[in-house]
């Protein structure tokens, strides 16, 4: 009971502390802080929009890629791979989750970014260049690189949890489907994965939470430029990156306060994402098990 209250106290306290710390910025800029693109410490003009944009877009790329790859990998490991393949690969995936993010960042900067800049990005620009998403100059570092690196970092979360969920689906359901003359594949897609779908969504939200808050790896490959561009090749900046990068250099109290307000915004985004996903899961479960 006391331990439970401690968690409540920590969450509430964190929120209040953030509000308190960003009070100067909150009162100076008002709600306009959220949709302002200014970020000039010299003139003390601050706005959060480019950072919100960078955070949301890079995390969106990450979760789309990671959920597709992660769920596919989990389905293969749980339903189709023979044990001598499934066991070592499952272990490797869990190991991937334990790699420190700065190592991912280094790999992203020295391997992923050059590879993307040299081959993948030009290919995308060549084939899908008519879309604003894939036009403009290619730097290597940028939204797409950050999104893909984040995807790689959160794939283990999606894959490991989804695999466990699929393994937990009662065998009776598989047998019911197989006894109707369904193939393994039909059984997996029509019965097994849907039976685990609420939990799989939970896994994706958990992973999305990690992508939203990931700091160091994103910083190393996103380009750190507070700009909003339609192109995924363009450099950008995330909420957590700018806090980490500029906190030590923040000289004026308004500057520090603005950075804290960015933290507050990140906190609120995370709460909204988690809360809405939880509501969705709850309504899904209620429809399936009304009693």
């Amino acid at each position, binding site marked *: 009971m006391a331990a439970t209250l401690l968690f409540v106290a920590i969450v509430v306290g964190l929120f209040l502390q953030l509000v308190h710390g960003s009070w100067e910025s909150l009162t100076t800029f008002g709600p306009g802080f959220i949709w302002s693109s200014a970020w000039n410490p010299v003139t003390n003009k601050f706005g959060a929009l480019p950072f919100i944009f960078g955070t949301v877009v890079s995390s969106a790329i990450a979760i789309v890629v990671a959920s597709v790859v992660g769920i596919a990998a989990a389905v293969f490991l749980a339903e189709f791979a023979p044990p001598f393949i499934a066991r070592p690969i499952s272990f490797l995936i869990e190991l991937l989750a334990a790699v420190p993010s700065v190592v991912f960042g280094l790999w992203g900067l020295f391997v992923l970014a050059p590879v993307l800049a040299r081959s993948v990005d030009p290919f995308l620009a060549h084939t899908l260049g008519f879309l604003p998403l894939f036009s403009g100059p290619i730097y290597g570092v940028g939204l797409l690189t950050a999104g893909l690196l984040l995807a790689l970092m959160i794939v283990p979360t999606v894959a490991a949890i989804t695999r466990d969920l699929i393994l937990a689906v009662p065998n009776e359901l598989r047998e019911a489907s197989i006894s109707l003359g369904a193939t393994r594949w*039909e059984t997996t897609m029509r019965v097994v994965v849907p039976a685990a779908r609420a939990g799989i969504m939970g896994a994706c939200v958990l992973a999305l939470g990690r992508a939203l808050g990931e700091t160091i790896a994103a910083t190393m490959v996103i380009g750190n430029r507070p700009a909003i561009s339609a192109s995924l090749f363009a450099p950008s900046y995330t909420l957590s990156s700018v806090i980490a990068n500029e906190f030590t250099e923040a000289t004026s109290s308004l500057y520090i306060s603005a950075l804290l307000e960015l933290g507050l915004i990140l906190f609120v985004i995370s709460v909204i994402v988690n809360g809405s996903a939880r509501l969705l899961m709850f309504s899904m479960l209620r429809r399936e098990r*009304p009693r």
Partner: protein
Amino acid sequence: MQAAIPVKNAAPAGGEVVLSARSVSAWYGPKLAIRDVSMDFKRNSITALMGPSGCGKTTFLRCLNRIHESALGTRASGEVLLDGADIYSRGADPIVTRRRIGMVFQRPNPFPTMSIINNVVAGPRYTGITRDPLELSEIAEQALRRAALFDEVKDKLKAPAASLSGGQQQRLCIARALAVKPEVLLMDEPTSALDPLSTLKIEELMQDLAVDFTVVIVTHNLQQAARVSQFAAFMLGDEDRVGALVEFAPTERIFTHPQDPRTEDYITGRLG
């Protein structure tokens, strides 16, 4: 000797054999579970497989529609002739076999994410028999009527299957199996998870289904075997827990004049 259990059904004389198991053996990994079980199942009859736990009756049942081999490391040998053709022959497709030989399981296992009607049509829809909604809803109504469930669910076909009671869920599973239009229906202790009233309903349903189908039922319950079946088989595991067939005869004879002393011990309650 006279058994204490009254037998209701007389065996039909000289029916045509639909399904015939010949020397079926089955393994879980290296472990032999049943050895050389042979039995003939006649059209529109109900055959009960009886025996103590671990005698291999469920394993044998699962060999009859090749679902035994769907688990990892399992294997079966022997022949199972369905209308004269071996379902284990090279080139025989287990998918096709399972559509012709339906199965109902020990615990009701409706698909939890699907509505009542989608459960019933899952087989025809997902295995490509038809995707036409009108045709599917006809199949659903027919199957639900056949499973004596239609009147209870006709106003809530779109409700989740989990909203039904245990007995209703089991009849839903029967309807789901019937919707694929099988010839043979295998039932693995279909009432063991149900209350007496639901059990009674399912037993009545079984009698009714035997008009159109051939039913093979595994049961722990001797009274149930006596009430519903025309033929009964008694299986027993040896000291290595390898199951084998002890006796197979019309139910009436098994319960009144068992040929094997072990059968007599079992039905009089001295064994198992």
